[in-house]
């Protein structure tokens, strides 16, 4: 009986388990889970703070998931090293776990810059895990002045999550705009404006250089008084196991389309992996939940002896703040076409007869039709793209394509 080991217990791990079981119903699966919780929906931690979900509903799978899939979960276990010759994982508690096929789904960890005086700050938090969130929840009060370092997805979702529970929120970022990884300057300004209308204050192109207890001394010379500090500057893929075992690592663990690393029998998926981004044609860490699941599932199928490739990953995000929805996909290195009205903005990016990216603000209905044009690399001269700019519609497709999509099994 084949023995599978998965390091990590998040979305990629679930994908991996379900991928393995789609091929091999009986092999042993051991999950090495640093967190002491069954798998939960990590992106929901901010929604919990808003009261839109609870710990029960945050369970990513039902209570019988591990039992149904015959998995052994080692809670609180941390993988210390990988022995690729003996095919074993050594845990920090000294035990070893043997595998025939291994998937590293270790995710990422917050990157904390070496701020001077950070150790003098009493209430400081990351915002990645359920435990991070619960710790933050117990620290905030209606009187809390919160400083969030980082105006990315994590920092801003944290701000939205706590805004009704605290007195004030200031977000600083060295970047000149919010959500700099997914928005261009104009769109970022629109989103920032919306966030400011909801009471969030910003200090952009600025960062803390030194902390002294409840005071942040900024690069600009300003000071910020705060009670709670949230560090959401960035994340780093957890790659050390593979790196130390001699596997190839760049920003993430390098994997091929089958999610294999260059160590025999070892796969990687999720936020720790650097796989193929079909929107740019280069390898890249695409730390988003759909890709974690699909990458994990792909790894699982291949670990169990099946055949699967994950070759159509693209960056894409759907994120909302205070009821205002933002969707982005692909990259923006093309000719821009803009559609705009009083409440919404759409920017499409086109290159070589293909839609390669978009940014949608406030008008997101049926956006998957656009996303699919990017994923499928649909030549724009085979559809009526003009028709779909104002509102996404399937009318753009030729009749025979529509017949396949809506008259056949897809």
């Amino acid at each position, binding site marked *: 009986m084949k023995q599978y080991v998965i390091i990590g217990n998040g979305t990629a791990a679930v*994908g991996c388990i379900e991928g393995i079981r789609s091929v091999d119903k009986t092999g042993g699966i051991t999950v090495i889970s640093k967190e002491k919780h069954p798998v939960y*929906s990590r*992106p*929901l931690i901010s*929604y919990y703070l808003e009261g*839109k*979900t609870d710990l029960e*509903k*945050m*369970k*990513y*799978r039902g209570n019988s998931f591990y039992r149904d899939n015959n998995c052994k979960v080692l809670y609180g276990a941390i993988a210390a090293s990988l022995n690729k010759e003996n095919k074993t994982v050594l845990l920090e508690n000294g035990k070893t776990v043997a595998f025939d096929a291994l998937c590293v789904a270790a995710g990422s960890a917050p990157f904390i810059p070496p701020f001077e005086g950070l150790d003098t700050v009493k209430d400081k938090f990351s915002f990645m895990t359920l435990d991070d969130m619960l710790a933050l929840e117990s620290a905030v009060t209606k009187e809390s002045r919160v400083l969030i370092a980082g105006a990315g997805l994590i920092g801003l979702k944290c701000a939205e999550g706590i805004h009704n529970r605290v007195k004030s929120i200031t977000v600083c970022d060295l970047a000149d705009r919010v959500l700099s990884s997914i928005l261009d300057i104009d769109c970022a300004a629109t989103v920032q404006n919306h966030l400011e209308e909801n009471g969030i204050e910003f200090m952009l192109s600025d960062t803390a250089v030194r902390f002294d207890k409840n005071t942040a001394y900024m690069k600009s010379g300003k000071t910020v008084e705060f009670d709670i500090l949230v560090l959401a500057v960035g994340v780093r893929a957890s790659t050390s196991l593979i790196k130390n075992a001699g596997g190839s690592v760049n920003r993430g663990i390098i994997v091929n389309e089958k999610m294999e690393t260059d160590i025999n029998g070892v796969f990687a998926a999720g936020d720790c992996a650097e796989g193929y981004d079909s929107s740019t044609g280069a390898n890249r860490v695409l730390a988003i*939940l*759909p890709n974690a*699941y*699909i990458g994990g*599932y792909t790894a699982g199928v291949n670990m169990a002896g099946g055949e699967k490739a994950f070759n159509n990953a693209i960056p*894409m*995000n*759907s*994120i*909302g703040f205070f009821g205002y*929805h933002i*969707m982005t*996909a692909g990259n923006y290195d093309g000719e821009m076409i803009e559609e705009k009205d009083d409440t919404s903005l759409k920017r499409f990016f086109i290159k070589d007869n293909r839609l390669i990216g978009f940014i949608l603000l406030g008008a*997101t*209905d*049926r*956006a*998957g*039709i656009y*996303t*699919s044009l990017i*994923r*499928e690399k649909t030549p724009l001269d085979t559809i009526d793209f003009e*028709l779909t700019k104002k509102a*996404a*519609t*399937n*009318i753009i497709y030729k*009749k025979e394509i*529509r*017949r396949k*999509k*809506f*008259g*056949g*099994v*897809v």
Partner: protein
Amino acid sequence: MKRVYVNEEWCLGCHLCEYNCAFANSGLDDMAYALKGKKIFPRIHVESGDKICFAVSCRHCTDPICVKSCIAGAISKVDGVVKIDRSKCVGCLTCVLVCPYGALAPGENGTMQKCELCLENSCGAPACVEGCPNKAIVYEERGEEE
């Protein structure tokens, strides 16, 4: 399995399917009371072009990307039917971002809804199909079995 399929040549663009869908999923037994004067949130929608119109609802894909993409684990496939547990949905719209057919949309309370073939409401089979005056949508077996 049986799915809802479109015969676009026959669609009149009357939007009755949208009303029948909203009514079937309202849990009420009086159509006028359920829908009159209200904004409706059907799980099927009619798309109209210059010369053609047709109704779009969930394709119940063999490999549904919405299931894999849902950040809340709220969408699952059970016996071939793609279902959503709306109590788990937080309205992030990731499913809207990934569905190639534009088949998911938020309901009245902001959580997502989608066609579940009326298998669990009082109809037991798609109300949109039942009420289509021109058989422009049908509920039948086509193509391979899973």
